[in-house]
């Protein structure tokens, strides 16, 4: 069995890798992967899907063969406080016939089935285009326009043919779709629609609760079962609305009481493991109302109202800076790049927002919040530092902003970053990483597993921070793993997040399992 010649990096790959201290000049990045590479990268469609999918009360229809919908079904753990339409997977399931004769006809039928056969009419349908749709040249815009006229809903095409660029292009396509949605925020018809929807729902509930059941021949248990089923159904109709009502009422009360002094939007947060809610809580506490979240736990209504905000704050710049820039152009809303990943960054971000809004009460409240939360957080971090200082970490994540914040946090915890790479970083990101790391740290763009393996071994990493595909690799090498991807189950933002990060790192790095690998047989 020969082992792969992984340490002989491809000549073409050499420009994508550098060692801090050794190389002069810049890293090569933001390029297509090489043909034949075992790349970790995804496609344009995937970029659009992860950014747009958390819009909770839209129907997300994937126009393409079934795979594109299957692999991205509920791929992101975005939490919702209301509707959960986005957690279902809708596909046109294109077949050979559709490829030959064009997929537009099927798309029309699918929209018809969605609108006429299903019980809940969506207000907005996003149609994602995929590789094959781009090649056969379906005119999504024409189909969308026709459907809008026929059903009176918004049908928004997302130009995300997989091959037509990198994942970043997909982020842009999603941002365009969001802008498209915002462009009609004044339209009156929406209000009429949602009123009608509420009335429909109310009628349905009434109809079900009024319906008398036929219990003939049933025993008590069966009768209870029928009743329970009915109750469950009514509950299910009510829950989504009840939560929205509660939230809206709360916000309204607080605005009236003068609790909220400013209105802003949060961009580039996907409410993974409730991260968006954590940030929202801080903002609310200091007197800021969040109009819309892009896109974790966002509703169509919120997004349409987004242009009424006076500031956009951008958490994940890689995916959403584009939207921030466009909103500045279109609606004159300024934006701030912030980050709630890491303690110092969280504090800086809160202060930055308050300063920008130039409101003394908010500035004071931010200091009060920090004074209240900081000592406790620092005390907890001190405990974990005992377990983590001196460990070595390798980082390979999608977005550069995550990598940057991780290196900073590791520095704080006394963990040395020996390797850091991203899938989608830009040149300026790599410059910043160079600044933050020690001499000898490997910095790389769009790495493949062999490269990760070689550098992790060479540098003696104790833990790999990455996504799902890298987890199995790290474990195989007997190295701990920390999930910093869509699938993470623990929030990593704010005061809660930094403690979680330390806790999770301790949990994996100091797990007894790594000792079990070589003990036993060898000893």
């Amino acid at each position, binding site marked *: *069995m020969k*082992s*792969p*010649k992984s340490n002989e*990096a*491809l000549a073409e790959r050499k420009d994508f890798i550098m060692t801090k201290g050794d190389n002069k000049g810049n890293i090569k990045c933001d390029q297509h*992967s*090489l*043909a*034949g*590479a*075992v*790349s970790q*990268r*995804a*496609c344009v469609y995937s970029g659009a899907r992860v950014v747009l999918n958390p819009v909770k009360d839209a129907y997300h229809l994937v126009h*393409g*063969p*079934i*795979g*594109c*919908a*299957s*692999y991205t*079904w509920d791929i992101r753990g975005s939490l919702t406080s209301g*509707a*959960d339409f986005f*957690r*279902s997977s*809708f596909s*046109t*399931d*294109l*077949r*050979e016939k559709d490829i030959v004769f064009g997929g537009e006809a099927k798309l029309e*039928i*699918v929209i018809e*089935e969605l609108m006429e*056969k*299903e*019980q*809940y009419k969506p207000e907005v349908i996003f149609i994602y285009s995929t*590789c*094959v749709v*781009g*090649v056969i040249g379906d005119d999504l815009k024409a189909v969308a326009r026709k459907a809008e006229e026929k059903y009176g809903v918004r049908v928004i095409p997302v130009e995300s043919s*997989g*091959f*037509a*660029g990198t994942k970043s292009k997909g982020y842009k396509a999603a941002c365009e779709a969001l802008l498209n949605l915002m462009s009609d925020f004044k339209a009156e018809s929406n209000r009429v629609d949602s009123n009608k929807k509420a009335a429909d729902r109310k009628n349905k509930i009434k109809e079900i609760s009024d319906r008398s059941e036929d219990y003939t021949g049933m025993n008590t248990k069966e009768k209870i079962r029928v009743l329970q089923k009915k109750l469950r*159904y009514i509950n*299910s109709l009510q*829950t989504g609305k009840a939560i929205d009502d509660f939230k809206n009422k709360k916000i309204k009360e607080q605005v009236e009481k003068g609790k909220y002094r400013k209105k802003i939007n949060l961009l580039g947060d996907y409410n993974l493991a409730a991260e968006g809610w954590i940030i929202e809580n801080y903002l609310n506490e200091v007197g800021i109302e969040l109009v819309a979240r892009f896109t974790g736990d966002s509703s169509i209504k919120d997004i349409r109202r987004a242009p009424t905000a006076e500031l956009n704050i951008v958490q994940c710049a890689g995916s959403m800076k584009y939207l921030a820039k466009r909103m500045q152009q279109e609606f004159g809303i300024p934006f701030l790049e912030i980050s709630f990943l890491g303690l110092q960054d969280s504090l800086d971000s809160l202060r930055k927002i308050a300063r920008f809004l130039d409101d003394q009460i908010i500035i004071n409240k931010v200091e009060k919040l920090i004074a209240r939360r900081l000592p406790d957080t620092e005390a907890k971090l001190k405990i974990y530092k005992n377990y983590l200082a001196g460990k070595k970490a390798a980082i390979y994540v999608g977005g550069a902003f995550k990598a940057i914040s991780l290196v900073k946090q590791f520095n704080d915890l006394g963990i040395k970053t020996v390797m850091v790479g991203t899938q989608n970083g830009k040149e300026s990101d790599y410059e910043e990483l160079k600044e933050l790391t020690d001499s000898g740290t490997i910095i790389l763009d769009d790495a493949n*597993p*062999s490269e990760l393996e070689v550098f992790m071994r060479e540098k003696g990493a104790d833990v790999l921070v990455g996504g799902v*595909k890298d987890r*199995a*690799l790290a474990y195989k090498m*007997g190295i701990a793993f920390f999930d910093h991807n869509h699938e993470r189950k623990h929030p990593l933002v704010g005061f809660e997040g930094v403690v979680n990060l330390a806790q999770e790192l301790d949990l994996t790095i100091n797990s007894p399992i790594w000792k079990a*690998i070589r003990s036993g047989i060898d000893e």
Partner: protein
Amino acid sequence: MQDLVPEEYKERNSLVINPVKTCQPIGAMYAALGIHGALPHSHGSQGCCSYHRMHLTKHFREPVVASSSSFTEGASVFGGRANLETALKNIFAVYDPEVVAINTTCLSETIGDDIGSIINGYDVPEGKTIIHASTPSYVGSHISGFSNMVKAMIKQLSEKNKDAKTNNKLNLIPGFVDPGDIREIKRILEAMDIDYILFPDQSDVLDTPLDGNYDMYPEGGVTIPELNDTGNSQATIALGEFASSDPAFELEKKHDVKPYTLKSPVGIKATDEFLMQLMKLTGKEVPAEIEKERGQLVDIIADTHHQFHGKKVAIYGDPDIVISLTEFVLSLGMRPAHVLTGTPDNKFEKIVEEMMEDADWDYNITAGGDLFQLHQWIKNDPVDLMLGNSYGKLVAKQEDIPLVRVGFPILDRTVHSYLPTVGYKGAMLLLEKISGALLDRRDRDTDIQLTEFVL
């Protein structure tokens, strides 16, 4: 979820909501991983390859490595020949696999790349092998993709001795099953002292031990000489009509090796049939050890049959496993009420229909269905148990039905890929899961005063 699913079922012909299938290339990739030293290669844009690797990694919790032609807009206009040639050059230079198994995608198929002719014109390095399968995502499902890649192994690699001398071996195609199943099938063959060529073989590839070393090409997998030799075997046993029978027939066409298609050997009856076929073809006896396992299994069912009898079940997933599970639960006295696969093929409906011949209860059977439809069926006709992959968990949770995870993919439980579902041992493990799920449920629903230690 809950807001969305109305009780009333209206027929849909085009829209798919919550699929029970995925596309061909991932099946081809899984099959290719069962060849020793192989690097699966996806000829399309890089997203596909990433998704397939991610999905397989989630099910097996093992590293899955595959390369991609990384199509750009240029390739989509001018064809993917240049990309594939560059890819192959890079693959052999860096990853140095013994075999590259290329699958196409919807993109490369639509552009019309002719992989066969590109490979023919390519200077394959000494001692290396390239195979390729056509797997457009808009045809069939991941199961047909698996079948097509296995077919490619036969078509492009099987040979026949000039003297037509048999190697006295049996070919065995296990189907789209876990490494744990393959190990069990091999154990049975070895216990019966049967010489075999099993392919594709993902054991020791996707269930490797952790020893601190990462090996990109683990020790498992069928070898190229073994695949060459399949043309000299006595017969081919194809387990699973949908995943395995096509390649077996291909071998008959090519080298006149007789194919025998059997059900995936899940449950007593299907395992009996498998063993009987082995005896018939080889003249070998079933050893006492395996016979004892059968007896134990029957004993377990006798001890527990009251738990199962009359209970209603919904079964969904890939056709071969769903068919065998349906037969198994029928043999336990359970009532399959809803049987559904996402893979579009009317044969499925016919086969299950025949099994249900004696059923005196209402039931639904469909091929090419989705989980939304299953959910509606269950709302109208509730069941006591669901059998299927992880994607049914939201239905199970909402309708408050215990779910036993069987099939692919299982994304939220572990160990499944190491232990068998096939054979008598596999049936015991399955029974333990089903019985456990039903009794856990019963304990949960029983008042504490009425809760007993002995059940």
